[in-house]
């Protein structure tokens, strides 16, 4: 359950890090603090945290690059950026990297706690797969494993972010039927996030790169003008 969830706080500011760890422990979480990118890597290898709170500016690396590594190494972890960089471009970049949320400093601890609970709940929902989605399913040219958050295409294995998984699962659950863009937003993004059309389109573009057999007209994830998207084929392996 979320109250005993394992969290990893990656924060280089001594006071912010120490106070966050104390307060999150008081709230019932198991918390590890990493003050650098190197320590964060070691921590997620040994603990596989359920949620990572990640600062963007770190003394030995950039949080955005670290997020990509985290996604590949521990795809099931929820990811929340916690940063003083609050400009919209960076926020969009963070969310495109697969972050589940993006919290700008300074924040209220109660608000952070609520966001953590929401992210953990969504991660848990993603982990609970219906029977037809278990194991490996073939979507277009990709072999997708929703349990492992991975897809194999063209001889390469790709890590899927939580949002990519959520979007693909939603489309797969309605194979042959159009899914509206609003429904995709509601299922994959929280009420506190405000993705632009560019964000949603980028997710679809990335998914198409994985599943479409060729670069021409999309055959597997088709755009339905004025409605949304339609997945044409899913087969169990």
């Amino acid at each position, binding site marked *: 359950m979320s109250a005993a969830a394992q969290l990893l706080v990656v924060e280089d500011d001594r*006071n*912010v890090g120490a106070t966050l760890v104390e307060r999150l422990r008081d709230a019932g979480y198991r918390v590890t603090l990493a003050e650098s990118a190197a320590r964060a890597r070691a921590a997620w290898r040994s603990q596989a945290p359920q949620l990572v709170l990640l600062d963007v500016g770190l*003394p030995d690396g950039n949080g955005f690059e670290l997020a990509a590594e985290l996604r590949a190494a521990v795809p099931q972890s929820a990811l929340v950026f916690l940063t003083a960089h609050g400009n919209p471009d960076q926020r969009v970049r963070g969310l495109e990297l697969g972050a589940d949320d993006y919290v700008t400093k300074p924040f*209220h601890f109660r608000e952070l706690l609520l966001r953590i609970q929401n992210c953990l709940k969504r991660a848990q929902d993603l982990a609970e797969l219906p029977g037809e989605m278990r194991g490996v399913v073939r979507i277009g040219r990709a072999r997708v494993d929703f349990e492992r958050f991975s897809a194999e295409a063209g001889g390469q294995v790709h890590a899927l972010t939580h949002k990519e998984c959520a979007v693909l699962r939603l489309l797969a659950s309605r194979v042959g039927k159009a899914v509206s863009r609003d429904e995709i937003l509601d299922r994959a993004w929280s009420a506190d996030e405000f993705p632009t059309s560019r964000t949603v389109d980028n997710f679809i573009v990335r998914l198409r790169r994985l599943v479409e057999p060729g670069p021409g007209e999309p055959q597997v994830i088709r755009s339905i003008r004025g409605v949304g998207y339609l997945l044409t084929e899913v087969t169990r392996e």
Partner: protein
Amino acid sequence: MNRKAGEGSLSVMPARRARLVAILASLWILLVMVLGAGWVALVMSQARQISALQALTGSADTQVAAQWDSTRRRIVGESVVFLLLLLAVTALLAWLYWRESRRARGMQAFFAAVTHELRTPLTSIRLQAEAIAEGEQRAELARRLLEDSSRLESQIEKTLELARIEGGGPLAEQSVPLQGWLERSVSAIAAGHGGRVAARVQVEEDLPPVLADATALQMIVRNLVENSARHAGLPCVQVSLAARRVGAEAVLEYRDDGQGTDAQGRELGRLFGRGAASGGSGVGLYLVRALMVRMGGSADFSSAPGQGFKALLRFQCSREEPAA
């Protein structure tokens, strides 16, 4: 809850502005070229008419031809000068635009860095205060609150000093004896870092007072110590300050035993330059250098991975007796 995705890019203004500037500049050059060409054509036409009139009034052919040659040479000369001036003005405008763009980018980077430097201690203060408001009563929370308040204060002071120095604000010319003064200042600054800085000060006994603004000198030392505390990567950084006379100058050598950086000396004191490390606004070392230059001295920085950070400050020695 149903929501529509936001429309359009979030940062279209700079691209629009750049496009507008390019269009206006092109229109301006086109307009000036058309006017210039029109002016040349008009003058040439008038010169031809004058020559024709002179021919009609009975002037000799050779005289008319000479007059025409002279007029044509003058028009060609004026046109060349006009075009050169036009090119020079265009180049000047382009240079001014480039300089302004660079300055704007620098300011943007500075505000981003300062915002970061203010938001981080504010976050910490809020977390501490919320914990206290919810009943936590611990000396550790109060200590962190005080430390974060000092960080905020220091950042605000640096920003204000930068604005003052960049605006040409004056500095006092004082005779400052480093003997005694340096040790007192460094001890007070190190104490503010709560045991994370251990300082050693050594001043040559017969070192004459240096020519400096005491407040600026205080800020220089504080920025150096803060820089070490922030970037050393150690729980407790050792800093040493040794002042001695070298020729007509007084040299203050500052060192720390931190992890160092591979950034070059000029890069270390560059305004808004923040290197690979995440912290800092890129103002501290720039202010050290700018203040030293304004006081008639100089500051050189060097660092290497595993070899800490070193600053060499050169002061003019004062001929006056120290201020009481």
